[in-house]
């Protein structure tokens, strides 16, 4: 299985569809529009690559996610801002005692999961913003090992949370209640199936139930695994700036992959060759 780069969105600069300082979060909605959180803005690109909308957020956004009902969640330091599809602010969740920097957001029926990098765990809230429980900090390390400074996870169709635990070179599976179901991944500096460096993978995205997309840092690369943790493909490795770290990744309905280059501030779009390998 191979991927080819088909498009590059955004970039570094002052143009409307460019970012000037940072590009941190990516999300894809059902219509394959790309939501990118960077600087202090959210930019929405149509599937063709044209900038459709952009709006400012209260604080720099570290994560962006699109809920099933089309609302856009933006994770920020200490809070989550919720916008409607047009970018109008609808609510802001703050949980000052608990919630720190939100670096990933996921949904399952009736649940909103917020990755809290300050608390090194995933916080579970209900749809109205009521805190339910923590995931991933019921262990000896009191949370995920994140020398990268970000917790990243994806939620599959069954509501299982796949979270990166970079310090252990693993992707861990949790139930919404916080029970550890299992994990895959191991350290290996040579075999692409293993995770290299001190602490990888940095970011995880999940589509449906069968594909787990991850990115690594140093050297930066994007990979795809199947549900059992078998490597399907290395999507790309040499197009990214070598100093990239915490590259957000998202996958679209046709199996296309979006990876944010955090140094060049570009979004690389890859598509599988031969058109197969689409979402399950």
């Amino acid at each position, binding site marked *: 299985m191979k991927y080819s780069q088909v498009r590059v969105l955004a970039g570094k600069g002052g143009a409307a569809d460019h970012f000037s300082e940072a590009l941190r979060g990516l999300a894809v909605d059902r219509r394959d529009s790309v939501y990118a959180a960077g600087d202090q803005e959210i930019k929405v690109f149509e599937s063709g690559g044209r900038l459709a909308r952009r709006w400012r957020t209260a604080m720099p956004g570290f994560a962006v996610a699109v809920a099933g009902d089309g609302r856009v969640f933006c994770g920020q330091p200490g809070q989550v801002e919720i916008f409607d599809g047009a970018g109008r602010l609808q609510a802001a969740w703050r949980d000052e005692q608990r919630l720190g920097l939100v670096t990933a957001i996921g949904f399952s029926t009736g649940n909103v999961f917020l990755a809290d990098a300050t608390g090194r765990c995933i916080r579970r809230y209900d749809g109205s913003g009521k805190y339910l429980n923590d995931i991933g900090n019921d*262990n*000896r*390390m009191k949370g995920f*090992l994140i*020398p990268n400074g970000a917790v990243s996870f994806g939620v599959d169709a069954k509501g299982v949370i796949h979270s990166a635990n970079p*310090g*252990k*070179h*693993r992707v861990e599976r949790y139930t919404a209640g916080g029970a550890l179901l299992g994990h895959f991944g*191991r*350290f*290996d*500096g*040579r*075999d692409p199936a*293993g995770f*290299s*460096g*001190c*602490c990888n993978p940095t970011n995880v995205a999940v589509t449906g139930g069968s594909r787990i997309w991850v990115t690594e*840092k*140093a050297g930066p690369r994007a990979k795809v695994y199947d549900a059992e943790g078998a490597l399907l493909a290395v999507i790309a490795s040499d197009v990214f700036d*070598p*100093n*990239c*770290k915490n590259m957000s990744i998202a996958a679209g309905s046709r199996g296309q992959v979006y990876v944010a280059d955090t*140094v060049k501030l570009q979004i690389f779009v890859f598509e599988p060759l031969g058109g197969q390998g689409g979402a399950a």
Partner: protein
Amino acid sequence: MSDQTTRRGALARAARGAAALALGGSAFYLVRKADGQIVWNVDSARCINSRLGVTNVEACNLCTTECVVPLSAVRAVNEYSKCGRCYICPAYFNITSAVDEKGLPSEKLCPRDAIERKPIGDIDPDDPANNFYEYIIDEVKCDGCGKCVMACKEPLGLGSIVLRVRHSLCVDCNRCAISTACPKDAILQVPIEKAFDHVQLGSHD
């Protein structure tokens, strides 16, 4: 005759006075400029071993080879408060080496065997990945080659290991031999109170 000697004496005195004035003046100028005790210091933001944005190059080991004291006065230091205590530390292991049966890289990175690795905190005997590890640099063995510094820096590591001048070993050369050789002018004289400041690593270039 006596007239001449006094004239000569006066001339000599005048010349001496002028010279004293010149010397004193330049000394005064320099003292006005001086800012207390200054020491040699590695500017981590300039040192290519720790400077961000430098990747895929060999670690510069001029600090090892150029220093005038037998074992360089520049040594690697682990700022524990910044250290991620990683299970697999890229400064300790050669992460590109083959993985052994325990799941760890088989080679160590330090050519002088100067880094010690030990688990800390509540130790989980069953899963070694479940522990934090302290990486302790042996001052006596380290010669400042910078390999670990290069390996620890962002984005691979957290950049907790940096090169530092051991002021107790540094002989405070007029012109530090390393600074002469350093291609990035990373060894600078700074006021003593700034020498121990935590250096905020600058971004690319």
